[in-house]
C-alpha cells in the first residue's frame, strides 16, 4: 500500500506539526481585524454566537466575495473559488441549484445507505486483517471508505484512485501547488466532470449524477458550468473531508485518547456520540491560510457588539467557536461520549451548511465503531510527533498512519 497523495511531505525545514486534536491557542473575544495571506483585511469572528450570526445572517453572503469589486482572497484560487460553485452563489439562485441534490442527502435518504456502508467497512477491515501487521490505515481504510461511498452514490465505477488524489489535492490546495498547476488540474477535472455528465445524459441510471441532471433539466435555469462544478465538487467534498476527519480522529483515538477504544466498540450509539464530539473538537485543518469560513457583508452589520462595515470580508472561525470556553467547558477526555451542549459548526450553518453532513456522520460513526469492534488492540506504531502530514491544503490529515494490532 503506497501513499497516493501528491501534497505530501515534510520537505527540508518543515517542523513537525501537532496533531489537530491538540488545542491551538485561540483568542476568544469579539470580532477583530486581521489580514488574509493576500493582505486583504478580514474580520475574524470566533465566539460561538458570533460565528452562528456570521453564517446565518442574510446581510453576509458568499457571492459578494467574488463580485467585481471584491478584494483578493487567495494567491492561488482553487475549486472553492470557482464562481460557478454552489458555494459561491446565494439566495434563490443558490437554492435552485442546491435543490437538485438536496433530496439525496437528507437524514432519511442517507440512512438507507447505512447497511451498504457497513458492508464496505467490514470488507476493508477484512482486507486489513488479511494484509497483516503493520499496515497503513490511511491507504487501507480512511481513504478508500469515503472514496468507495461517493463513487457508488455517483455511479463512478471506473474512477481512477491516483487521478482522484491528484485532482483533490489541487482542488483544496492553499500553498501545495502553484496557481498554474491548480488551473491545469482543475481543467482536467472539469473535463472528467463534463464526460460523466454527457454519459449520464445519454444513459441515465439510478445514481446521484443522473438524478441531479433530471432535476436541473426540470428547473431550466442552471448553467452547464454550474453543473460541471457541482459534479466535481461533489466528488471532492464527498470524500476528502471525511477522510481527513476519520484520519485525525484515529490519530487521537489510537494515541492520547486510547482509553475510549473499548467503549467505541460497545455500541453504535456510543460511537455516534463520540463522532459529534470529535467533529466538534478536532478541526479539519489549520487556520494559517484559512482563518475560517469566509463571507462578505452586503451592508453594515453589528456582530458581537462590533460594527462591521459594508463590503468587509469576514472569517467565521468555526474551530474556535467549537471550543468557545463560554459554551463548551469539557474536553475530549472527559466528554467523548456526552451529548453536545450546543450546536457545533464544523458543517457550517445557514444556507451553505454542508450538504453531506449526514453522510459524513454516518460514515464516521460506523467506521469507528466497526474498527474498534474488530481490532480491539489496534494501536499506532509511530509517535504522533513523527506523523507525515498532508501539507499546504485547506485540510490537514495524515498522509499515512502506521498501525498494528
Amino acid at each position, binding site marked *: 500500500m503506497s501513499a497516493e497523495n501528491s501534497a505530501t511531505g515534510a520537505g527540508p525545514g518543515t517542523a513537525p506539526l501537532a496533531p489537530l486534536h491538540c488545542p491551538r491557542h485561540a483568542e476568544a473575544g469579539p470580532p477583530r481585524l486581521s489580514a488574509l495571506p493576500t493582505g486583504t483585511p478580514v474580520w475574524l469572528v470566533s465566539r460561538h454566537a458570533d460565528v*452562528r*450570526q456570521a*453564517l*446565518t*445572517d*442574510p446581510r453576509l453572503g458568499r457571492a459578494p466575495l467574488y463580485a467585481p469589486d471584491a478584494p483578493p482572497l487567495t494567491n492561488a484560487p482553487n475549486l472553492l473559488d470557482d464562481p460557478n460553485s454552489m458555494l459561491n452563489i446565494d*439566495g*434563490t439562485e443558490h*437554492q435552485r441549484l*442546491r*435543490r437538485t441534490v*438536496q*433530496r439525496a*442527502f*437528507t*437524514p*432519511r435518504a442517507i440512512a438507507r445507505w447505512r447497511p451498504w456502508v457497513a458492508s464496505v467497512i467490514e470488507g476493508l477491515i477484512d482486507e486489513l486483517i488479511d494484509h497483516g501487521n503493520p499496515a497503513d490505515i490511511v491507504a487501507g481504510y480512511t481513504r478508500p471508505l469515503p472514496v468507495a461511498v461517493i463513487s457508488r452514490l455517483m455511479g463512478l465505477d471506473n474512477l481512477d484512485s491516483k487521478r482522484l488524489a491528484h485532482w483533490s489535492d489541487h482542488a483544496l490546495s492553499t500553498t501545495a501547488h502553484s496557481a498554474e498547476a491548480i488551473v491545469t488540474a482543475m481543467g482536467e477535472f472539469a473535463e472528467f466532470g463534463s464526460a460523466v455528465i454527457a454519459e449520464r445524459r445519454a444513459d441515465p441510471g439510478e445514481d446521484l449524477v443522473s438524478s441531479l441532471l433530471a432535476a436541473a433539466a426540470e428547473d431550466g435555469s442552471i448553467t452547464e458550468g454550474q453543473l460541471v462544478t457541482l459534479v466535481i465538487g461533489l466528488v471532492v467534498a464527498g470524500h476528502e473531508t471525511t477522510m481527513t476527519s476519520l484520519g485525525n480522529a484515529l490519530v487521537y483515538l489510537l494515541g492520547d485518547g486510547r482509553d475510549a477504544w473499548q467503549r467505541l466498540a460497545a455500541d453504535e450509539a456510543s460511537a455516534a456520540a463520540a463522532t459529534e464530539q470529535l467533529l466538534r473538537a478536532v478541526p479539519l485543518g489549520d487556520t494559517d491560510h484559512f482563518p475560517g469560513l469566509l463571507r462578505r457583508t452586503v451592508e453594515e452589520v453589528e456582530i458581537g457588539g462590533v460594527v462591521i462595515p459594508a463590503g468587509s470580508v469576514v472569517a467565521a472561525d468555526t474551530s474556535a467557536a467549537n471550543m468557545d470556553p463560554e459554551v463548551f467547558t469539557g474536553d475530549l477526555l472527559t466528554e467523548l461520549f456526552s451529548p453536545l451542549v450546543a*450546536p457545533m459548526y464544523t*458543517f*457550517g*450553518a*445557514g*444556507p451553505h*451548511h454542508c*450538504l453531506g*453532513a449526514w453522510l459524513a456522520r454516518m460514515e464516521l460513526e460506523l467506521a469507528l465503531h466497526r474498527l474498534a469492534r474488530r481490532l480491539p488492540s489496534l494501536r499506532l506504531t509511530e509517535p504522533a510527533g513523527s506523523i507525515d502530514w498532508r501539507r499546504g491544503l485547506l485540510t490537514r490529515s495524515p498522509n499515512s498512519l502506521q498501525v498494528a494490532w
Partner: protein
Amino acid sequence: MTAGSEPGAGAGAETVVVRVDRERCIGSGMCALSAPDSLALGAEGLAEPVAGYGGDGAELTAELTEAVDFCPVEALTLYSARGGYRIAPAE
C-alpha cells in the same frame, strides 16, 4: 385542485400547522425562500412558522410541501390543524 385554483377553492381542504425542531434547525433559510407565506427566519436565525401556520392552521400550499420536503436537516413537520395527525414527512 389545479394550479389555477381560486383562493378558498379548497374550502374543506386540509389546513395545517408546521412545527420546527429547533434542535435540528441550522438556519439554512431554504424554507423561508420556498414558502415565505408559511415560514421565516426568526430569533437566532432559526426557522419559525408565520401566522396561522404556527397557530390555528392555514392552507397547505405546494410551496410549503416543498419546503418541508427539501429541509436539509428535516427540521420541519407538517400536522393536520384539525386532526392533529402528522402529514409529512411520513413517520
